[in-house]
């Protein structure tokens, strides 16, 4: 594609060679590299999910062997968690937006940023190699001693890949933390930061503090495998529960890695499309931080039936209830933001409202699992599967799509087709509920997760779920199609198509490589729509043709 006249100065077309893309240190280009990579992994994980749902329409299993089924859900879990959900919003929208929202030229460490992408790609290739050449049937949790002594699959390359992806996460986290501390534009105080940045800051803290524990755990796993040092394997004198403790000490905070950025996006979108400051700004900001902090203290709730002590179970249950309070605060504040606003139901807002609804369902069903006696009945069944998909897919994927539509004009300089956008948002909401709501009922009836075959009494609900999955698949394919279309044919976007307040909307769409023609100075609170209107009036008076 030839560069369009007058657009040579923006970051997309400044230098179009492959080499310039692969060696770029521009956070916006790295964001796009990441976006392409995680889209590939999302499609891969999605195909696995589609095959799983297709297999489960018949109690005896429709298409694959038990072994292949185990490998499919292992692939789905590992790819979706580490190669899509954990990086998703931070490395794409976050990478693109952090410097723009701060009013900075780039992240604090642009080369580290590029390195993190290369680490991520290598990690992804290792994981995919392991999953396809040999396959792995441990589930994404690698519980010992199944993963160490009792599996024929390729544990090593997959674990090495996950280990490597951790360093990519840490690099991103460090970069965001330092950038937010050091690169704020003049006048950009902490309480003037967009809430997206508070959320990404909290996420980065988890990246930096929790990911090393995953690294250590995986190293110990390798150590045991190669040198037969008893760490987790009871046959060698180790303790299998130790692995679960270490694994969930990372993986529970990682759940908040997977949802906090989504909450940030929703705060931005709700404010913009209600044309009103976020209700209770400071509460929303600090609730992100408290989720990150309390999130480190609740890992034991994955182990209520695993054989930990009664005392531990009671304490972890109480802390798990506590961690849901800041989430509830956010939901109420978003509703408060809508009250008295001027609400426009454009695609990003539809996705954001879908997020609020589905995340609330996910959060409330989390209470069923934080409650000890009901957790004993529901855990390790389809109830859990439904619960975390409501958070991860209903929540995080909705938020990712909300953000993608919202910032698409800024990223590409093009508008997406609004009608198709709204259709996809509605399809996602209905398809998602049809897929996962029946799974709550399956879980209550006792259907265990990770079963390749199941008793016939569960078939009706499984067929419903699979039917929903096909609608959901359509809801994913649609944006892929119209976004690609809009890259070439979409209407030109103006600099601030949504009348939003963030600094990213003050530069051109798409922004120039150096982000801002003049370094911005911040004189107002975040979401100050009155100031925005005044500024636009002033510009209009200066340039009558504007």
């Amino acid at each position: 594609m030839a560069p369009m006249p007058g657009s040579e100065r923006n970051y997309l077309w400044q230098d179009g060679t492959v080499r310039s893309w692969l060696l770029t240190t521009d956070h916006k280009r790295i964001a796009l590299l990441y976006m392409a990579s995680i889209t590939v992994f999302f499609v891969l994980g999605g195909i696995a999910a589609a095959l799983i749902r297709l297999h489960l329409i018949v109690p005896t299993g429709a298409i694959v062997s038990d072994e292949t089924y185990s490998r499919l859900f292992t692939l789905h879990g590992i790819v979706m968690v580490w190669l899509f959900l954990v990086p998703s919003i931070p490395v794409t929208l976050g990478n693109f937006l952090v410097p723009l929202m701060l009013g900075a030229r780039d992240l604090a460490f642009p080369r580290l940023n590029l390195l993190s992408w290369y680490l991520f790609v290598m990690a992804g290739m290792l994981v995919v190699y392991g999953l396809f050449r040999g396959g792995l049937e441990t589930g994404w949790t690698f519980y010992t001693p199944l993963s160490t002594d009792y599996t024929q699959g390729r544990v090593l390359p997959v674990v090495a890949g996950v280990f490597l992806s951790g360093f990519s996460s840490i690099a991103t986290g460090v970069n965001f933390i330092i950038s937010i501390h050091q690169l704020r534009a003049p006048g950009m105080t902490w309480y003037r930061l967009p809430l997206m940045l508070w959320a990404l800051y909290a996420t980065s803290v988890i990246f930096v503090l929790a990911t090393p524990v995953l690294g250590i755990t995986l190293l110990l796993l390798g150590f045991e495998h190669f040198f037969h040092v008893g760490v987790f394997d009871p046959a060698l004198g180790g303790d299998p529960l130790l692995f679960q403790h270490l694994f969930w000490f990372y993986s529970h905070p990682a759940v908040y890695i997977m949802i906090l950025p989504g909450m940030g996006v929703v705060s931005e979108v709700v404010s913009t499309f209600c044309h009103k400051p976020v209700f209770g700004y400071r509460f929303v900001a600090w609730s992100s931080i408290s989720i990150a902090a309390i999130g480190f203290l609740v890992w034991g709730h994955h182990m209520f039936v695993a054989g930990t002590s009664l005392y531990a179970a009671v304490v972890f249950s109480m802390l798990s209830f506590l961690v849901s309070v800041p989430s509830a605060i956010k939901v109420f504040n978003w509703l408060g933001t809508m009250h008295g606003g001027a609400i426009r139901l454009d695609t990003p807002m539809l996705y954001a409202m879908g997020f609020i609804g589905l995340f609330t369902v996910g959060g409330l069903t989390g209470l069923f699992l934080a409650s000890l006696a009901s957790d004993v009945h529901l855990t390790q069944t389809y109830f859990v599967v439904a619960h975390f998909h409501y958070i991860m897919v209903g929540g995080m994927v909705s938020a990712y799509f909300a953000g993608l539509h919202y910032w698409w004009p800024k990223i590409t300089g093009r508008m997406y087709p609004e009608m198709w956008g709204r259709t996809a948002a509605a399809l996602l909401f209905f398809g998602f509920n049809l897929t996962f709501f029946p799974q709550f009922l399956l879980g209550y009836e006792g259907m265990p997760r990770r079963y390749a075959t199941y008793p016939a009494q569960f078939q009706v609900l499984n067929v419903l779920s699979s039917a929903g999955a096909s609608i959901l698949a359509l809801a994913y394919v649609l944006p892929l199609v119209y976004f690609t279309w809009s890259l070439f044919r979409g209407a030109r976007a103006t600099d601030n198509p949504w009348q939003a307040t963030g600094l990213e909307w003050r530069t051109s769409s798409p922004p120039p490589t150096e982000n801002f023609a003049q370094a911005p100075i911040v004189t107002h609170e975040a979401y100050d729509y009155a100031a925005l209107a005044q500024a636009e009036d002033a510009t209009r008076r200066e340039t009558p043709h504007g």
Partner: protein
Amino acid sequence: MSWLPEASSHAGRVDVLLAGLVLISLAVLGLVFGLMFLNIIRFRVGSQMPVPHEVVAHKSWRFEIGWTTATLVIFFALFVWAARLYVVGFQPPAGAIQIYVTGKQWMWKVQYPGGQREINSLHVPLGRAVQLLLTSEDVIHDFSIPVLRIKHDVLPGRYQSLWFIATRTGSFRFYCTQFCGIGHSRMTGTLVVLNSTDYADWLDHTPASGSLATRGEALFISNGCSGCHVSGRYPPDAQEPGRAPSMVGLYGSIVPGPDGRPVRVDGAFVHDAILHTGAGRFPKGRYTTEMPSFRGVLGEDELAALVAYIQTLSSSTPPGMGALASPPREGR
């Protein structure tokens, strides 16, 4: 919510808790979706509804503190309710029938105190407390009985316990719910609850090679345990009687545990003590020799028999048969 039968009074209580959770969830969802739709109808751009002038922003603190406190109070009540129900699961009543359940890839082996054995099937009498002693020969499994609303992970090398009183006769499914390899979904079985006469009948007609305790007694001699441990009928053949603790009256007594704190000797304790002996695990005290570990020497079936035998050496606890024990009240 009653299409999944409740086969114990605990199941009933869990269902009440679930119903409470569902009601609270529906109320919150109603509030969230209601407010969302109300806001859209009133404040949508182009809406015909008059917009009120006083905006609630200045009352923000009162709102924040209001909904935070409300959430905290409701959550704390739920926590206490569910935790009280859960604590019950940790206290098996005295006199429960002890049944040994061993998981391995991919089947459940069940051993009864009378020496009966079966695979992927568990027979229990109606209205009597039953304690399952669960362990695994390989990876982590999980024994889940949905009609009783209970489950527990089954770990290699240690005993976990689940107990219940079945209140409904019939056949119900149990499952392995911890992913244990490619045969995971085949690792299911049937719980059969029989009334007491049918149960006695079933026990009589199921072949058994001597009771579990009798087998344990034979193992106690053949593996040389009786060479050091006093067990009533078999005095140690060594000259010095104080080589090892006596097994008489040990079960149910309080002894110093591995970390020095006092613990009550139960099935799990005896099982672990046989497997995990060795330096530092137990205070050697006045004994001169250290017991070798029997890991890899004794299988889980044999360990179950030994545990059953050692129980019979304590007069205070009935030998797992519990034929005369009256059904205790479940819970408090």
